[in-house]
């Protein structure tokens, strides 16, 4: 490939610059800042792309789009390669033939034999800066590999192989990176392993926790039992405390009761002196009672006797008032009832005789009146009733008959002439008929009146007979009455009563005598009774006085004695009652005291038992000690219980936590997932690590093979370089080579066989060595590929004239096969190039219009 023409639209300081190049040796001559380096950058940019924006070698023009083109003459034809600025920093490449036909951009890559920009810049288009260092050229990378590959049989793909291995191995692993696959996986694995480590030995923890849980449950159970025991003890101690209090109270009660009993005993003794014994007081009580029973009689004796006397006098007066020849003694002998009965009998008969006379008289009066009545009725009945009993008077009957007849005549005149006789006949007939009926009725009435008169005459006869009978009855009654009155007089005389009084008065007299007799009899009875009572009363009073005397009392009369004795007995009774009550109270107090004692004994026994059970038996000797110890023990127990509860609570919480952990771990799939992932990652890492190792080993094998090859057989490029270096140095140095253990160092051997490293050479000679090496590469490259143009930017400035001439000579030789484009600002070098047939082009400082060629 060669560059026939370059055309710059805008690049750095150039605008619309066009130059035509010769096919062999070309030289651009111009002063400093004329744009030689810009032109070198332009060629590189068109072939490989613009540098990154902002880079010093991008040469972005101001206000214009960076662009330009080269006319390339290649084995596959001549075409324009145009590169213009675009969105991508490399710019856009277009290939077209001279007649404007578009070509695929890959054609350029083919023409460049697919070399890299670096190789082109280091070997084919370089300046003094690139020339002065071999390190970059020899360093591992595409240039170095390309250099060696160029000279090794079967190693054309070596750079590709190493680059490919390097690239793919870096995607797998990078010791300082984190994005490579193995790095990622290792990171992931480390995380999982960290998590697994954090989880720890799960089964051991699980079963440890289970054991712990069992232990805690056992502990919980034991503590619950201990708690019950403590509570029982506490209850016992509380009971001890309660018992102790109860016993204290009971003891106080018992003492109080003992005091009370003593006092009652004293009272009892006092009361015993005050009371009289019952056997002794019994006769007194009976005498007093007997007297008390007669007391009212005693007091009424005199009054009653006076009353009886007065009553006797009254009776005597009454008897005398009756004016009968009897005194009280007589009266007592007579029998009034007998006399009364006889008188009563006469009195009844007299009364009956009177009644019979009155009846007879009455009946006589009735009979007389009846006869008078009948006699008066008879005359009246003979005349009156006949006329009054007629149906209708006769004159009224004739009148009516005439009326009817007259009515018939009048009616006959009213009728027609033919009917008049008939009407008169009917009227006459009716009048006659009426008169006949009246006559028949009057005859019946006269017959009835005759029968009535006969009946009344019979009644009058019967009434006269009755009146006669009644007159006889009256006369008989009057005779019986006179007889009876005679009998009464004789009786009164026999009873020594006045004869003139009636039977009724006699009866009343006898009734009053009987009453007086009875009163006297009653009075006598009362006197007897009063006498008897008086005797009894005096006996009772005597007995009372005797009793009073025996009781030591001084009263001489019964009433006073009774009062004194009663008082004495009352006092005695009261004392006895008090004594009895006191004795009762005493007995109660003693019973209570006994009960307290018994209860105290029971409590003591119970207390001792509880104290033994509650562990305070030693303190039983003293109540205070016991109470103190019990309270002390209670406090200890409470504190122990509280501790126990705290422990139970904490254990229960722990238990809950453990159960939760166990359940979580039983169900937890995280560990399994982590382990699964860990295994997966391990397997994957093993696979990838093997791949990585294979790639690294392959690269290692290739490098070792290359070194081995180089050691066994110097590559061709080294041979060419040796020839070039000898030519440049005028035979001063004969050989150039590298060593496997220092691949980035070039060695030179002088004509005497002495080995020089590049660093040991002078700067000019070192640049000549490097140039020789590059020229060797270029020649070697051209043997298997299309030759590429060689562009050199003022590289001979450090060469002495002889070696500069040798160099230009060598370039002129090479330019027969490779187009050479050199830049210089040195007139001597320009002349030297011109001398060797170079096509010289000038570069003015300003932009030059089109086709300013030599």
């Amino acid at each position, binding site marked *: 490939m060669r560059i026939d023409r370059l055309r710059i639209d805008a690049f750095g300081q150039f605008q619309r610059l066009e130059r035509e190049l010769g096919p062999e040796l070309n030289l651009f001559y111009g002063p400093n800042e004329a744009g030689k380096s810009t032109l070198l950058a332009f060629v590189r940019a068109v072939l490989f792309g613009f540098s990154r924006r902002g880079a010093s070698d991008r040469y972005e023009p101001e206000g214009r789009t960076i662009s330009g083109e080269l006319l390339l003459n290649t084995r596959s034809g001549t075409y324009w390669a145009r590169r213009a600025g675009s969105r991508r920093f490399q710019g856009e490449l277009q290939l077209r033939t001279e007649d404007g036909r578009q070509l695929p951009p890959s054609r350029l890559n083919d023409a460049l034999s697919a070399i890299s920009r670096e190789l082109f810049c280091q070997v084919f288009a370089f300046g003094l800066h690139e020339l002065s260092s071999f390190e970059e050229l020899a360093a591992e990378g595409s240039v170095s590999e390309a250099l060696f590959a160029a000279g090794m049989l*079967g190693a054309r793909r070596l750079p590709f192989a190493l680059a490919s291995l390097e690239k793919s191995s870096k995607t797998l692993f990078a010791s300082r990176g984190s994005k490579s696959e193995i790095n990622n996986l290792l990171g992931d694995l480390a995380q999982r392993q960290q998590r697994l480590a954090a989880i720890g030995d799960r089964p051991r923890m699980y079963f440890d926790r289970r054991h712990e849980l069992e232990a805690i449950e056992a502990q919980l159970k034991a503590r619950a039992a201990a708690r019950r025991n403590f509570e029982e003890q506490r209850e016992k101690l509380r009971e001890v405390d309660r018992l102790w209090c109860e016993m204290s109270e009971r003891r106080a009660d018992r003492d109080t009761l003992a005091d009370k009993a003593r006092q009652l005993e004293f009272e009892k003794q006092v009361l015993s002196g005050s009371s009289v014994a019952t056997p002794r007081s019994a006769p007194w009580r009976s005498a007093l009672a007997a007297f008390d029973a007669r007391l009212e009689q005693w007091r009424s004796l005199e009054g009653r006797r006076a009353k009886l006397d007065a009553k006797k006098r009254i009776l005597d007066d009454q008897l005398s008032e009756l004016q009968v020849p009897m005194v009280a003694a007589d009266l007592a002998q007579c029998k009034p009832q007998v006399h009364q009965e006889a008188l009563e009998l006469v009195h009844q008969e007299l009364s009956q005789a009177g009644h019979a006379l009155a009846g007879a008289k009455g009946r006589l009066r009735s009979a007389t009146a009846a006869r008078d009545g009948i006699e008066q009725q008879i005359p009246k009945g003979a005349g009156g009733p006949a006329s009054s009993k007629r149906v209708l008077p006769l004159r009224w009957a004739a009148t009516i008959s005439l009326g009817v007849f007259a009515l018939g005549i009048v009616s006959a005149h009213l009728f027609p002439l033919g009917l008049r006789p008939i009407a008169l006949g009917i009227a006459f007939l009716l009048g006659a008929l009426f008169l006949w009926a009246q006559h028949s009725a009057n005859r019946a009435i006269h017959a009835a009146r005759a029968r009535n008169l006969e009946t009344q005459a019979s009644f009058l006869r019967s009434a006269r007979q009755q009146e006669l009978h009644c007159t006889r009855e009256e006369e008989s009654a009057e005779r019986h009455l006179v007889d009876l009155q005679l009998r009464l007089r004789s009786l009164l005389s026999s009873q020594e009563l006045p004869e003139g009084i009636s039977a009724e008065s006699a009866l009343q007299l006898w009734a009053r005598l009987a009453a007086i007799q009875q009163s006297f009899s009653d009075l006598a009875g009362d006197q007897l009774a009063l006498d008897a009572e008086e005797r009894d009363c005096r006996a009772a009073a005597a007995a009372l006085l005797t009793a009073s005397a025996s009781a030591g009392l001084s009263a001489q009369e019964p009433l006073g004695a009774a009062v004194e004795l009663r008082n004495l007995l009352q006092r005695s009774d009261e004392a006895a009652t008090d004594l009895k009550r006191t004795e009762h109270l005493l007995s109660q107090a003693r019973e209570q005291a006994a009960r307290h004692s018994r209860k105290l004994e029971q409590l003591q026994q119970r207390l001792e038992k509880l104290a033994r059970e509650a562990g305070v038996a030693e303190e039983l000797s003293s109540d205070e000690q016991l109470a103190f110890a019990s309270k002390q023990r209670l406090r200890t127990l409470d504190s122990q219980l509280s501790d126990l509860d705290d422990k139970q609570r904490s254990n229960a919480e722990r238990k809950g936590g453990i159960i939760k952990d166990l359940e979580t771990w039983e169900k937890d799939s995280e560990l399994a997932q982590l382990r699964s992932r860990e295994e997966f990652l391990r397997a994957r890492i093993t696979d990838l690590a093997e791949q990585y190792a294979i790639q690294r080993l392959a690269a290692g*094998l290739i490098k070792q093979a290359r070194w081995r090859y180089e050691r066994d057989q110097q590559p061709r490029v080294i041979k060419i370089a040796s020839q070039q270096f000898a030519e440049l140095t005028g035979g001063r140095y004969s050989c150039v080579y590298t060593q496997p253990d220092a691949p980035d160092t070039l060695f030179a051997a002088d004509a005497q066989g002495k080995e020089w490293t590049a660093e040991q050479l002078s700067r000019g000679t070192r640049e000549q060595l490097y140039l020789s090496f590059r020229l060797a590469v270029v020649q070697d490259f051209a043997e298997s590929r299309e030759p590429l143009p060689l562009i050199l930017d003022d590289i001979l400035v450090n060469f002495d004239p002889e070696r500069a001439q040798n160099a230009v000579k060598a370039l002129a030789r090479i330019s027969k096969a490779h187009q050479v484009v050199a830049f210089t600002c040195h007139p001597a070098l320009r002349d030297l190039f011109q001398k060797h047939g170079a096509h010289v082009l000038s570069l003015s400082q300003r932009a030059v219009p089109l086709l300013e060629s030599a």
Partner: protein
Amino acid sequence: MGFKFVHAADLHLDSPFRAVSADARLGELFRRATLKAFSRIVDLCLRERVQFLVIAGDLFDQKDRSVRARLVLRKELSRLDVAGISTFIVHGNHDPLSDDGGATAFPSSVKVFGACWDEALVLQEGRILCRVQGISYPHERVTEDLSPAFRRQGPEFTVGVLHANLGRNTEHENYAPCTIEGLASRDLDYWALGHVHTRCEYPLPGAGIAVYPGNPQGRHIRELDERGCVLVEVTDGATDRRFFPVDAIRWHRIQVPLTAVTCFEALEAEIEDQLDAWRDSFHDAHVVRVELLGRGSLRQELTKPGALASLEEHLRESLLAREPPVVLESVRDLSRANLDLDAVHAAGGLGASLVTVAKIAKSDRKAFEALWSDPELHRLEAAIRRATVSPLMSEGASLIDRALVQALELLQEDALED
């Protein structure tokens, strides 16, 4: 008199699956798989009315720290206890006595052998039916042979329960290493072994047999196919052994030659075809690793960056939708260039140099260490060691081989045109 017993080992209860990132829907299925497998073992014991159950170590993984494992173990053994079935247990390297802490209180019918040899008698109607001997690991790393402690104590059928590595199986830690001859010399009738997760039997010279029932539930891609326990029927001293699968989730490896498929759809169809054979109700899920072999036309597509991951993602989703669900462990591209290392060496140049360097690195310790002296590799080693991931150096030789292949593939000139 005949009787039956069940021999199980390496239950690894509630132990996670390796390299399977089960989603939330399947997470519980996976977590329950080992527990379910053990439950099925107990079901078998009850169904077959066995005399006893023998568990030869590794009942659970100490590092899993699973409470559930202990609780389920106790619950299941209680079922046997209720049915009058005894259980004999020894502890292995994953559940040694030192870590047990005596935390798991088993029912009275469970005999756990201690760190010293012990024998228990199985009686029937007052007569000795069988003798069971066992030793538990006192700690994880038991490196001495425990089998010499076993010895016949009577004429009755004798079972030795031991967690041991018979014949230095390199896939497992070489704990309690023992030999067939050593076991045969103890004159026992049946060695109920645990530790090796793959079922196998070793007839012993003379008489007797040593049996690994394998683990009842596979947990990673190296524990493929059916997993379960062994039902042993003893008649007149002779044993008849029947294997019963109990696994709830099964692991599979599917190999698809890329030569046979031309597109991703065909690749998926091929995988689905192979999966169709596993539709059953016995398993809750399947886990599968798909390995792509050969160099067909799809390979170029698959070597594009992200292509394999994309295929894996797509397959993972579509397989998960099956019933029972199929979980994709990974898709592995095992399609390698047809490299003839001798030819590469003969061709010279960098390829020959590579082959030589790799050869020297494998044979020369210093060269090996020089190759491993890559500081980044060292840092990775340190990082994964810190993360308790198994170290890479142990796989060094095989890794160098794979690295050589990769390097040669990358440097192949024709790869330029890829």
